[in-house]
């Protein structure tokens, strides 16, 4: 690419909680020539619109709202003099560490980075991806879009609301819409369990008497210019609507909270290997992708429940990127980490055998398991166990693995079994 590229040590794509934590960590290890590129006009990412409380208990031992949590990272980054370039859209990332970006302020730019950290976050699954029949009326939004309207722009998207999907943003919006004066008629979930955190079911639905219809889905959308109602039906074990079980709701708004997908267009372009289970890059325990010197952390890697864990993971990624520059590579033998029974999308997928350390294995249960244990094995050897009253897909499980327990290069398997 262009010989006039701007040379930087570390380039970070995204100034949400992941990008900010990675930048601060890298800077604190002594990397000065560092730049963060952010598409929006402000740093902070999705936290800016998450005005509810509940962030930061693990990291700060206090309960913050999203904007307050983000501000702490922004303040830290500013105090360290970190160069955050907002209003800058990254157009491409290439395997040779060339990054092309465009902004109104500086036009088209080419960067050449020693290391790159991907921290682009995730996006909501839209209506088109779930195939609901019926009218294409106005009044159908993803929960996060509604959240942006209400919390950042001060507009209410509707008065009588049905929510499809029980992801955390949908639950949070059920409460927000209720508090701001709307009537939330129902939260409808296709699966027999919610994909949201239990606390949000309690705090956002139960507190306000909003019914949660499990094993139900929206089978029809009615309306002309504007949505006028939806039909909801119970589904059987194959998730097919059961005739005769239909319930009709008169509503003007349907919010969708039907899943989050890591936003990896740039990673695909750069040729990073993507896991079909997490939809994020395949990484080793220092969060380095299949392309040397390109790292990934936060929701672009795998969708988290807690921003505290995003910050923790991204701090590690930031340190690792700095270390990569010093060592010039993370070559060495690795042990593969595989998903066993009841486990989906364990991160990291590889562990470097370069030194003794503690590695956090993070994954989602593939279903609901009561009175069970998560178990990490290598061959016939059990390396670590973690018991829990319940494992659900809505809550990520983290198991610390002491690498001194590893013997040889046989793969490690993570599974869930009944106790």
């Amino acid at each position, binding site marked *: 690419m262009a010989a006039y590229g701007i040379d930087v040590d570390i380039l970070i794509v995204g100034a949400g909680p992941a990008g900010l934590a990675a930048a601060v960590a890298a800077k604190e290890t002594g990397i000065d020539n560092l730049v963060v590129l952010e598409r929006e006009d402000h740093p902070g990412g999705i936290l800016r619109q998450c005005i509810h409380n509940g962030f930061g208990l693990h990291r700060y031992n206090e309960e913050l*709202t999203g904007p307050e949590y983000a*501000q702490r990272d922004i303040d830290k980054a500013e105090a360290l003099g970190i160069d955050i370039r907002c209003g800058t859209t990254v157009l491409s990332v290439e395997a040779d560490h060339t990054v092309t970006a465009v902004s109104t302020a500086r036009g088209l730019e080419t960067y050449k980075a020693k290391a790159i950290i991907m921290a682009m976050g995730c996006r909501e699954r839209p209506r088109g991806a779930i195939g609901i029949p019926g009218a294409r009326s106005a009044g159908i939004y993803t929960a996060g879009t509604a959240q942006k309207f209400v919390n*950042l722009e001060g507009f209410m998207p509707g008065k009588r609301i049905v929510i499809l999907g029980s992801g955390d943003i949908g639950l949070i919006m059920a409460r927000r819409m209720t*508090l701001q004066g709307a009537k939330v008629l129902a939260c409808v979930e296709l699966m027999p369990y919610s994909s949201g*955190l239990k606390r949000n079911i*309690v705090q956002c639905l139960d507190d306000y008497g909003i019914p949660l219809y499990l094993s139900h889905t929206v089978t029809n959308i009615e309306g002309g210019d504007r949505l006028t109602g939806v039909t909801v039906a119970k589904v059987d074990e194959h998730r097919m609507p059961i005739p005769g079980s239909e319930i009709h709701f008169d509503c003007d708004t349907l919010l969708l909270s039907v899943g989050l997908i890591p936003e990896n267009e740039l990673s695909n372009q750069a040729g990073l290997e993507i896991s079909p289970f997490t939809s994020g890059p395949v990484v080793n325990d220092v969060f380095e992708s299949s392309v040397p010197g390109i790292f990934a952390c936060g929701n672009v890697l795998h969708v988290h429940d807690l921003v505290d864990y995003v910050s923790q993971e991204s701090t590690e990624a930031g340190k690792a990127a700095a270390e990569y520059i010093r060592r010039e590579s993370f070559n060495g033998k690795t042990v593969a980490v595989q998903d066993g029974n009841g486990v989906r999308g364990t991160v990291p997928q590889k562990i470097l055998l370069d030194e003794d350390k503690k590695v956090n294995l993070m994954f989602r249960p593939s279903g609901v398991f009561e009175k069970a244990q998560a178990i990490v094995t290598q061959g016939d050897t059990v390396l670590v166990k973690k018991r829990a*009253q319940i494992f659900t897909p809505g809550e990520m499980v983290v198991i610390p693995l002491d690498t001194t327990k590893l013997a040889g290069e046989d793969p490690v398997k993570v599974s869930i079994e009944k106790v």
Partner: protein
Amino acid sequence: MEEKQIVCINCPLGCRITVTMDGNEIKKIEGNTCKRGEVYARQEVLSPVRVITAVLPVEGSPVPVSVKTAAPIPKNKIFECMAEMGKTSLKAPIHMGDVIVPNILGTGVNVVATKSVG
């Protein structure tokens, strides 16, 4: 003896806590993983409280300001609290941490801004 099941809302881990009650007396609290969980469970069975967050319009700012109660308030005052906050007329600039409504509904709790606008 009566058992009450509570999901802790102190942090997003959501520990499932079982409180064993004898009338209005707490006999046993189990399932919490930190001290805050025990405190919460005790509170939740005796007199539940919540932190309330909201957005309020600000004159002179194209964007609303987000606010929170600086401490939890009684759960049965949530809607009264929203209505009271709605009566305020705010002007830019507002800074994060500014008191928006002092001592809301006589609870001793201030409503404060969680972002800066204007």
